[in-house]
């Protein structure tokens, strides 16, 4: 049984290798190879899952030791996989959603001549992500961690001829690198503290070490999580990441990779449990981000960026939950899974819309599409209901639990966090309704000439590369694209219920993450009720704004907040001014210093020597007579010396 674990990773890895090295002769079948291998990994996952279900709750952890990776003195890093309930959950999510999105991409990327490479990258991503969740020690996890970063870099920048895409990819990688720095420092800290960085021993020794070390480790892990999961302050890359093809946004930047941060925190639960300060930081980050993302999501007219903002905010929820400790771990993961379903579905829906609209992404040029693409409309709609937490759908269960848990943390913190979560729910309802209305309802704004909107200049290259610019003829997407959407829609409808009935999910994960019921100051019922009320309010406002009144084709100037939100709350401007400009100045001045100062000293010495020898050269004037003088003088000196010798 254990030996199958490696195969989980091997399958997509093989796919990546074959597709990337295979060359053009694979262009015809490449996408199918990729899809099949992803599916194979999924099947394998299911097999392992069933096998795991067969065992007792405490004996479900499988480990597979492949080989010793870096053995240097006390530093022993092995390639060992660990498959327990937590990683199992992720394996199924990753491979499942992954396979579906592979299938979807077959249709979506049909017209791209580099489709083979696209699937190669997708497989690479799957492999890296699986490595991340299956690793048994932090260093191996780090490999997967950066591996997904690489895959996301490649996929965001897949249309590299678009400067915007290339820039976005670079930005994503760099911001992630900052997070990775946190992870590596955390690993070093673990090594110095515990002498190892394998999960088991580290968690076992947690109680033997001081508070401070653990807090430091926790904060470093949080930094890593912020980078990968686009949490404040490292969230700026996610919006730009939407430059990538939509399936990528769905798989990497909604369902799986961006949730890695949550996985990291939950996985390191033992450490965080022992470091309350770090936990507090985590919750704060989560709360801030969930509001931040929601606000940004409200202002964006680009459908994908709006969804990206939503992703940010939803992950904020998860991080918040993860920060709550044992109360929240399970719900964090649960929301993570359900979110994986509905957000992937939403993105695929958005992709399908764009597919039908010549890659127009500006929602102000959509409208009334429900007639033209019914399947997309229905699936998207279900996803919408799920995310806003419509009673009975996935989002309702998971999000509701998180809000309760937030309150359950108790004390003022509990109130603040819970309040933030509630507010977030309301805003979520608002911006999602807005998206829904602008896209599928209202009059058909795309009828009049589709001049590219000034707000989204990056659209033009996309349009000219994939499909010509013309009056769009919205149409339903082919089967390969709709089927995954339908499946995901099912997921987003039923997953929540499936998990929550009889706390299945809770009992499934408890052996790994542990669980404790917090005593909530407000009853679960109150929370649910207030959530629903806020939900209605948010949706209502959105309807009032976008359902009743016609939507202007060009975005109005909007209030100060709106404009700020359109610019990601000025976060990018800050980065630009402080980091980019500053960095440029720094490097330029350093180049100058290196050339004038450091090198100048060297060249100066050389020049002075040259000058001196130039002066000495004058003595060698070539006149035999002056040489003769020196010889004669020398002879005289010698005579003098001999005489002196005799005298002495």
């Amino acid at each position, binding site marked *: 049984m254990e030996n199958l674990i490696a195969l989980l990773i091997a399958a997509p890895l093989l796919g990546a290798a074959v597709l990337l090295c295979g060359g053009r002769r694979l262009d015809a079948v490449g996408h199918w190879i990729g899809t099949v291998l992803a599916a194979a990994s999924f099947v394998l996952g299911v097999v392992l899952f069933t096998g795991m279900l067969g065992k007792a709750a405490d004996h479900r952890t499988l480990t597979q030791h492949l080989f010793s990776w870096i053995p240097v003195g006390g530093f022993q890093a092995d390639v060992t996989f660990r498959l327990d309930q937590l990683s199992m959950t992720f394996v199924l999510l990753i491979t499942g959603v992954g396979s579906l999105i592979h299938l979807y991409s077959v249709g979506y990327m049909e017209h791209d001549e580099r489709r083979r490479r696209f699937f190669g990258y997708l497989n690479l991503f799957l492999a890296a992500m699986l490595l991340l969740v299956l690793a048994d020690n932090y260093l191996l996890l780090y490999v997967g961690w950066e591996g997904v970063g690489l895959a996301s870099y490649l996929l965001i920048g897949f249309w590299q001829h678009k400067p915007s895409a290339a820039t976005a990819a670079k930005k994503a990688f760099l911001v992630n690198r900052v997070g990775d720095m946190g992870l590596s420092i955390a690993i070093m800290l673990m090594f110095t503290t515990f002498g190892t960085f394998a999960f088991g021993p580290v968690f076992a020794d947690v109680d033997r070490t001081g508070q401070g070390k653990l807090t430091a480790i926790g904060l470093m892990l949080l930094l890593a999580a912020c980078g990968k999961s686009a949490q404040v302050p490292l969230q700026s890359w996610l919006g730009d990441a939407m430059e990538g093809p939509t399936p990528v946004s769905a798989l990497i930047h909604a369902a799986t990779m961006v949730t890695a941060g949550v996985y990291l925190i939950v996985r390191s639960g033992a450490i965080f449990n022992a470091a309350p300060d770090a936990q507090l930081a985590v919750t704060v980050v989560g709360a801030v981000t969930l509001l931040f993302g929601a606000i940004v999501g409200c202002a964006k007219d680009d459908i994908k960026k709006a969804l990206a903002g939503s992703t940010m905010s939803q992950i904020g929820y998860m991080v918040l939950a993860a920060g709550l400790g044992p109360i929240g771990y399970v719900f964090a993961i649960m929301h993570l899974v359900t979110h994986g379903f509905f957000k992937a579905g939403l993105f695929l829906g958005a992709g399908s819309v764009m597919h039908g609209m010549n890659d127009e992404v500006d929602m102000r040029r959509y409208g009334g599409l429900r007639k033209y693409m019914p399947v997309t409309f229905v699936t998207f709609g279900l996803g919408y209901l799920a995310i806003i937490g419509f009673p009975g759908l996935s989002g309702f269960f998971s999000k509701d639990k998180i809000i309760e848990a937030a309150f359950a943390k108790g004390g003022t913190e509990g109130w603040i966090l819970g309040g933030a979560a509630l507010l977030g729910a309301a805003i979520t309802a608002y911006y999602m309704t807005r998206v829904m209305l602008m896209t599928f309802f209202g009059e058909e704004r795309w009828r009049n000439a589709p001049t590219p909107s000034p707000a989204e200049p990056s659209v033009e290259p996309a349009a000219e590369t994939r499909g010509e610019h013309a009056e769009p003829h919205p149409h339903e997407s082919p089967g390969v694209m709709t089927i995954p959407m339908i499946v995901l829609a099912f997921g987003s409808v039923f997953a929540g219920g499936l998990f929550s009935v009889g706390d299945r999910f809770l009992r499934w994960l408890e052996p790994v993450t542990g669980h404790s019921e917090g005593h909530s100051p407000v009853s679960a019922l109150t929370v649910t009720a207030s959530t629903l009320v806020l939900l209605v309010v948010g949706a209502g406002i959105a309807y009032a704004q976008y359902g009743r009144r016609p939507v202007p084709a060009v975005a109005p100037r909007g209030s100060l907040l709106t404009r700020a939100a359109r610019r990601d709350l000025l976060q990018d401007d800050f980065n630009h001014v402080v980091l980019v400009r500053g960095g440029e100045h720094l490097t330029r001045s350093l180049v100058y210093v290196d050339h004038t100062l450091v090198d100048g000293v060297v060249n100066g010495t050389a020049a002075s020597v040259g000058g001196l020898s130039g002066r000495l050269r004058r003595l060698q*004037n070539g*006149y035999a*007579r*002056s040489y003769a*003088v020196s010889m*004669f*003088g020398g*002879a*005289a000196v010698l*005579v*003098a010396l001999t*005489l002196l010798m005799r005298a002495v």
Partner: protein
Amino acid sequence: MSPQLAAYTTSTGEAFQFWVLGTVAVIGALCTVFMKKAVHSALCLAGTMIVLAVFYLANGAYFLGIVQIVVYTGAIMMLFLFVVMLVGVTAADSLKETIKGQRWLALLCGVGFGVLLLAGIANASLKDFDGLGKANANGNVEGLAALIFTKYVFAFEITGALLITAAVGAMVLTHRERTERARTQRELSEQRVREGKHVPPLPAPGVYARHNAVDIAGLLPDGTASELTVSKTLRDRGQIRDVSDEAISDLKALEQRAAERLERGEDERPALKRSEEASK
């Protein structure tokens, strides 16, 4: 052998001779250095050498004395003179120093070195002379011969080889290999025409009864000298004797005298006119 040679002090005769000729030698040496013209230097040097020859004799080196006169003063100095002629007898090089500080350094070193030498000799204990009495017992030349052909025979042979080599070397050095074929008259004339200057042969030097004329520039009608008329070698050596001004003054004198005569007789005037026309 005169007994003085063995003595610690020499005879007053030799002393007298030393002081007189020594002075001459030093003066000669100084002149060698300070004469403007190489010829004079050579002659002064010859003088010095003869004096030295006398000193050799006085020192009992009869053979060397003669050799000195024959080889040095006779052969070598003549060789010098020969070369001096070749390079230019009357070319006087200025004693003005061109290299900065050279002269002063030279004098300084010279004086210093001299002083040191003299000091060295002075404080060397050279009081006892055992003279050449024994050595020259059966003739100076025989003595030398005995040494040369026994003890120094190899050195002797080698010097022979050296002389041969030197002779050959001199020939090699002075022998000029003609790299290109000598140009014929025709070619030369063609070249002249091509260059377009001096198409006719160069003008002849001015000829006057009272000079040998080769080194005298011919005069242009206005009485100034023309370089072209003197051979290149002389020009290089700067050995052109310019007589234009004295010629002009002669002409003046002539006319003056003619004028004096004219006051007596009118009949010469047309002749003078005629001569003027001729001169035009």
